């Protein structure tokens, strides 16, 4: 149905827009910026903060521009006296309820309320301070996310994120009036509810009410300790987003500069989680083929298919809470971060002749759930805590600034070896569909001896930002040992964002799906949209980060995990073969059923 065009005037400037456009968007097109707080491009319209009110000629009430569609002949004023007075009142009211200790706040300089307060500079705050003492007590129960209720402005962006994008609903609006707060089930600590630690709420919180539990000081302390050998690993998606917090545009690839900065900060070795991403493909790919063989050849009815990826710790915890009947479908592979930690404190420690107890493993992640993951009791297979500290991309940017490093002037440097080499298949782990694509590139070749039948190895059907993607690949001309797969149509699916994952899992639960392998990433867009990535986030920003990831892949000489020479070396020297004894000991794990409340 074609849309009608509507004529209106904003600040006396005529404009024609499609029916259904909001006043806010129409004004944007005329380059009139209207301040907003509760509005977010990823979320449904709330219209509750009222910062964006505008005057519509002839109307008794001011209109929330984010929630009001344009109409024919409308005359809008975005800066009338009424509007300015209302906006001032709204901002001052919000500030009266907000614990404005900005200089002590973790979000200092990254706060939308602070920005607006600084833009309007009202000197005459007349209202009475309403911040409650009990709200100043932080919720630090979670190893991933810290909540400071005294900073909350009740815009409900976190609630909408948690319900609409993630289908988790760990956060909700409770009580009404002056008692209204954003809280959890029975006001329990965040760590005791269904929270998956995905951190998407942090990415959309306009103030300092939600932020990552930060370990910056702990890491500096380890770096300064002469008795500690500090190894750092960097996740695929950090290299295409870190620049945003250091003055660069979204989509900038800063891999070499990041390595250089980490070295200058004093890390003893700068290694790459991409290496263990390649290793994950070897283990998980073999696991898939083993399960397929048990199902197709051995006719084993107990085998759990589809196989579900397990790289995303937010997704894993979601599954443990919401679909406990499907946890055996999760791959037993640890995530690349945890494979790295386990190998670092065993194989690698021996290699560099450092005692494991003196080694500190720090990982730089686009993720907050990784902070939870490294604290899981299962993640101590080296005999120590495999990964000691997880820093988000944002925390790393802060540390680079604190170290006085001029990031944009750095020369590119390369990762240390060994555990530093990686392939294009590993780097695409950073975006939705990447694990699937990497797995298919390797599995298809193992089975048939031929490359996957897609131009330039780019498996387009699993790429892009659609919530759930599907692909089928017909296996032809198998090697003799894989002939049971001859002619088999391998059905795969990919989901990102937990609301999409939930939809896919319900389909699997119903028994109506015929998938063999499913990749799920907990965050919208995959790790590039992770809860530890630079703020703000939007579909456009995530798209640019994803493009940078694929460009990084195309720029690699080796683009298939099984061709990573360091991976081959580690198998030869230590692990022997995928799913071997050592692998089981160090690289695989198990899951636990968790309650919903």
């Amino acid at each position, binding site marked *: 149905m074609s849309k009608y065009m509507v004529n209106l005037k904003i600040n006396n400037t005529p404009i024609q827009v499609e029916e259904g456009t909001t006043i806010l968007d129409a004004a944007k097109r005329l380059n009139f910026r209207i301040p907003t707080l509760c509005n977010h491009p990823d979320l449904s*319209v*709330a*219209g*509750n*903060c*009222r*910062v964006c*009110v505008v005057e519509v000629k002839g109307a*008794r*009430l*001011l209109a*929330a521009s984010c*929630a*009001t*569609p344009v109409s024919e002949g409308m005359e809008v004023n975005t800066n009338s006296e*009424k509007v300015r*007075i*209302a906006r001032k*009142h*709204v901002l001052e*009211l*919000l500030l*009266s*309820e907000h614990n404005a200790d900005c200089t002590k706040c973790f979000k200092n300089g990254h706060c939308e309320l602070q920005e607006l307060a600084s833009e309007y500079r009202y000197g005459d705050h*007349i*209202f*009475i301070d*309403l911040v409650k003492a009990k709200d100043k007590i932080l919720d630090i129960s979670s190893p991933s996310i810290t909540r400071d209720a005294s900073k909350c*402005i*009740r815009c*409900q962006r976190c609630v909408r994120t948690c319900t609409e994008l993630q289908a988790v609903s760990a956060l909700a*609006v409770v*009580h*009404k*009036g*002056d*008692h*209204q707060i954003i809280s959890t089930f029975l006001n329990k600590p965040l760590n005791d509810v269904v929270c998956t630690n995905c951190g998407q709420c942090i990415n959309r919180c306009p103030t300092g009410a939600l932020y990552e539990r930060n370990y910056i000081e702990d890491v500096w302390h380890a770096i300064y300790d002469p008795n500690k050998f500090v190894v750092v690993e960097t996740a695929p998606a950090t290299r295409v987003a870190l620049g945003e917090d250091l003055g660069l545009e979204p989509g900038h690839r800063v891999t070499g500069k990041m390595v250089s900065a980490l070295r200058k900060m004093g890390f003893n070795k700068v290694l790459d989680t991409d290496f263990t991403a390649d290793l994950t493909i070897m283990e998980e790919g073999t696991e898939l083929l083993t399960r397929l063989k048990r199902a197709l050849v051995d006719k084993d009815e107990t085998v759990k298919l589809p196989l579900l990826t397990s790289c995303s710790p937010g997704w894993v915890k979601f599954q443990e809470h919401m679909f406990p009947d499907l946890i055996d479908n999760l791959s037993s592979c640890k995530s690349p971060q945890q494979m790295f930690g386990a190998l670092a404190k065993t194989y690698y420690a021996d290699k560099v002749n450092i005692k494991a107890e003196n080694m500190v493993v720090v990982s730089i992640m686009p993720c907050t759930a990784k902070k939870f993951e490294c604290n899981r009791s299962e993640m101590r297979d080296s005999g120590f805590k495999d990964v000691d500290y997880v820093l988000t991309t944002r925390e790393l940017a802060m540390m680079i600034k604190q170290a006085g490093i001029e990031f944009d002037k750095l020369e590119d440097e390369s990762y240390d070896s060994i555990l530093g080499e990686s392939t294009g298949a590993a780097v695409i782990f950073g975006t939705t569909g990447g694990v699937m694509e990497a797995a298919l590139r390797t599995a298809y070749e193992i089975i048939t001896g031929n490359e996957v039948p897609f131009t330039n190895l780019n498996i387009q059907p699993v790429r892009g930002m659609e919530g759930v993607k599907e692909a089928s690949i017909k296996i032809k001309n198998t090697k003799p040992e894989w002939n049971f797969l001859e002619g088999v149509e391998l059905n795969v699916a990919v989901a990102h964002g937990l609301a999409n994952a939930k939809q896919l899992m319900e389909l699997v639960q119903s028994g109506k799906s015929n998938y063999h392998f499913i990749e799920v990433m907990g965050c919208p867009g995959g790790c590039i949209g992770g809860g530890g990535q630079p703020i703000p986030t939007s579909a456009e920003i995530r798209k640019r980060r994803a493009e940078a990831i694929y460009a990084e892949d195309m720029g690699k000489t080796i683009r298939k995990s099984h061709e990573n020479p360091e991976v081959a070396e580690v198998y030869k020297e230590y692990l022997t073969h995928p799913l071997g004894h050592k692998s089981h000991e160090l690289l695989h794990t198990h899951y636990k059923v968790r309650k919903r409340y």
Partner: protein
Amino acid sequence: MEQKQLKKIDIIFGWDDKCTPIQVVEKTIKKTAESIILDMIDSGLKGRGGAGFPTGLKWKFTRNEESDVKYVICNADEGEPGTFKDREILDRVPEKIFSGMTICAYVIGAREGYIYIRGEYNFMLKTLQQKVDLFNQQLHDKKVDFQIYLRSGSGAYVCGEESALFESMEGKRGEPRNKPPYPTVAGYNSKPTVINNVETLVYTSEICRMGPEQFKALGTKDSRGSKVFSVSGDTPIAGIYELELGMSLKDFVEDFGDGDTKAIQVGGASGHCVPRKKFNDTIIGFEGIPTGGSMMIFNSSRSMYNVLHDYLEFFTEESCGQCTPCRIGCQQLLKGIEAVKKGERPPTYLDDLKRLTATMKIAAKCGLGQSVANPFTSIVDNFREEIIY
């Protein structure tokens, strides 16, 4: 301004044995929907919940929407402090409500109707359900394709706001929605919905019974008909009275006051406070002060500071909390008058607060926050010294 003498009326609670509510339905649905709408518009009936939207137009707009499913909802979430007339109607003549709902359903093309009844009235659910069942059976026997269901609220004042009521009915947190869309386009379950107050629906049935002429002979040009009032406070004869619209407060207070009336709060906590000196020129009706029916009478023993403080405490607690002007504004007003009373803020702070209410009136998301200005400014303007000293 056109003015009427105080006159007691007996339409709402009257009973016509020759034309019972179900007979009104039978008689009315022989007419076309268009002619019923014309009768409603002609009668001049405006919504009796307080906002006063012309009922005939509401029905017409909803009828004009294209949709397989439409709803009629009776708003029986009578929560305005000082209002208790819907309770009496639900208790004594619920069949007239059912009749009004059925006629509305016939006009707009709805097959389901709901009565959303405030949680505090749950004690009457059992008997009301029996009466609903009986009426539904009669509709079924007469092959009228419409059924009525009861829904209980959970105690939040804001759920009387129509869109918050829909949210509550849909099992969600009772928070008002953004408008547009209005209920006539997207109401309950996002379907076109007529939502009318209990009393309004009874009048629609009565207008169909007696014809629009008899109804519009009562009242004034802008306020046709009569209205049920809940009279409370410092009065020897508290209770429920149906009166012709358009009387002056002076006449009202002569009949209902205790001889020492200082002020009357017209329209409940969210209404206006009228001081004695303005009784003469205050008309009760849409041209003067509209009301959902609450008339609270205060005599000279009452502190208007306490009255305002009570109202503000009520709004501070009953704001749903989602929008800034209402959630924080109410708290600032309450704490503000306390600070002025204690001398922690100067008397002129009341003027700052009045400016805040002016913002709340135009920037809050729903009628709750928008109407807090009414009691605040009318009490502060007329009883300023009582607030300060």
